[in-house]
């Protein structure tokens, strides 16, 4: 792999940037791999990268039915934070945040991770009690989180309306300074390039059409490019996880919903942090390009169509204008939807299944992007050892039968 550096940039400028190496190969599928990862989004590529880097398993294939990072990795609002309420979730997301901090150097790829802080607003007394509780829980877990009042919010975000005149007055917020945003496409590309350099085969336009299972043990997949064998298969297919599960004869405790987001025309710098509100139901940040990146809740119905209803967009923008009345005349540029796989407890599934050798990493729902490095890291360890990593163990599918749910609706209900 050609390493990227300032010096390299100058060198390539001399040859008019015509000799850059391709970021990853386009190999033909081998007959057999040690591990197959189904799904070439951020989580799948991260899984393949950590399998090769941390566990020395380089005979790995990533199967992607479309193009790399063309699903939710390219469709999210790029927020990274770890202020979750329960120990299990907080530890998993904080592990991820730790990995984010050194990710650009690790991958030799600028993922533009910017720790600009994330604010979760409270508009009612009950909101503020919940925020206090979550912040206390965060601090016990070693996560930098604090409660700030309306004046402090106004100081950080001058453009926000903290007046008492507002329909839903802002009373305070939780504030995580180490949280922020990252460049979503770069995350997929960076992981792909680094994994490819370690020998991982990234197979695009390769769709899994079935699993080969004998005596309860998986031994391969059928694809549109022929059968590929492997005794360890990790499915990381987000919204389409249920479709894969069905091929293996399994049902998952998931529902796939459209989640919409939109961006405005580019503006001068106006918002240098991330503001989220569970109560009025919306969140917003400003990208480095200047456009406001806006999102909110899912469309309530089941949908695989990567689009949702106009009413949801309208509701989202009502929330944004409630917090930022001065944005009321900003024009929106683009709007899109992704398919998110939501669990009843708003926590992911990292689990073995009844089929030996077949693992699932799904159910990240509305907030998977922030977890990309952590999810890949612990899932790779689980695939390598055949036993779930301690951080992943509480997120087994079994919890929906035993009742040991990790209810994160407070931290994840709207906040993504």
């Amino acid at each position, binding site marked *: 792999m050609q390493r990227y550096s300032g010096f390299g940039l100058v060198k390539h400028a001399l040859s008019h940037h015509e000799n850059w190496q391709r970021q990853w190969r386009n190999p033909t599928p081998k007959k057999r791999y040690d591990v197959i990862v189904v799904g070439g989004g951020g989580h799948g590529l991260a899984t393949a990268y950590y399998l090769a880097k941390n566990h020395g398993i380089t005979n790995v294939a990533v199967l992607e039915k479309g193009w790399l990072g063309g699903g939710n990795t390219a469709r999210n609002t790029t927020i990274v934070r770890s202020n979750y309420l329960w120990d299990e979730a907080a530890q998993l997301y904080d592990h991820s945040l730790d990995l984010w901090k050194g990710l650009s150097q690790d991958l030799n790829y600028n993922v533009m991770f910017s720790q600009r802080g994330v604010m979760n607003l409270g508009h009612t007394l009950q909101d503020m009690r919940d925020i206090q509780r979550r912040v206390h829980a965060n601090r016990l877990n070693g996560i930098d989180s604090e409660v700030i009042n309306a004046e402090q919010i106004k100081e950080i975000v001058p453009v926000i309306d903290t007046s008492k005149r507002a329909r839903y007055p802002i009373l305070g917020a939780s504030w995580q300074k180490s949280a922020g945003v990252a460049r979503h496409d770069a995350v997929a590309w960076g992981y792909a390039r680094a994994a490819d350099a370690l020998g991982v085969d990234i197979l695009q336009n390769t769709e899994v059409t079935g699993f080969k299972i004998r005596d309860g043990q998986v031994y391969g997949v059928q694809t549109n490019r022929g059968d590929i064998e492997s005794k360890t298969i990790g499915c990381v297919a987000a919204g389409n996880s249920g479709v894969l599960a069905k091929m293996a004869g399994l049902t998952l*405790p998931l*529902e796939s919903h459209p989640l919409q987001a939109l961006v405005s025309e580019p503006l001068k710098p106006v918002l240098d942090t991330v503001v989220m509100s569970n109560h009025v139901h919306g969140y917003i940040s400003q990208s480095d390009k200047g456009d406001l990146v806006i999102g909110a809740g899912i469309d309530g119905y089941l*949908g695989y169509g990567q689009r949702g*209803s106009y*009413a949801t967009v309208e509701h989202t923008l009502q929330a944004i204008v409630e917090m930022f009345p001065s944005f009321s005349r900003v024009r929106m540029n683009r709007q899109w939807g992704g398919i998110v796989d939501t*669990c*009843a407890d708003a926590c992911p599934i990292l689990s073995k299944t009844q089929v030996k050798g077949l693992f699932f990493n799904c159910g990240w729902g509305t907030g998977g992007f922030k977890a990309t490095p952590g999810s890949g890291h612990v899932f790779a360890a689980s695939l390598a050892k055949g036993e779930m990593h301690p951080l992943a163990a509480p997120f087994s599918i079994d919890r929906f*039968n035993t009742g040991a749910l990790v209810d994160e609706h407070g931290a994840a209900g709207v906040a993504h």
Partner: protein
Amino acid sequence: MFYIHCPYCGEYRGEEEFSPKGEAHITRPADPDGCSDEEWGSYLFFRQNPRGVHHELWVHTLGCRKFFNITRHTVSYEIFETYRMGEQPKVTEQSLAEALNKTRKEESV
């Protein structure tokens, strides 16, 4: 934007009047005390979540406030039918496939 026919009000209304409530035809266990953890789990959490034809429960929140069922495609979002509680769907994955085969045969003739 869906335009939904409420089988109780008998007219088409905009989506904003309705709320989706998930998969339809899930029966509460008749003997709750006799259920195993797996049976409770599958009743409460495990869903078909199909990429295709889906029978789902909706409520006419801002209208008659009655629950009813919709058969809808989860990729094209096309609504095939709406029907009252207690009724069975006329359109299913199977019936659609059969209808499609029939038209194909007719076309080939």
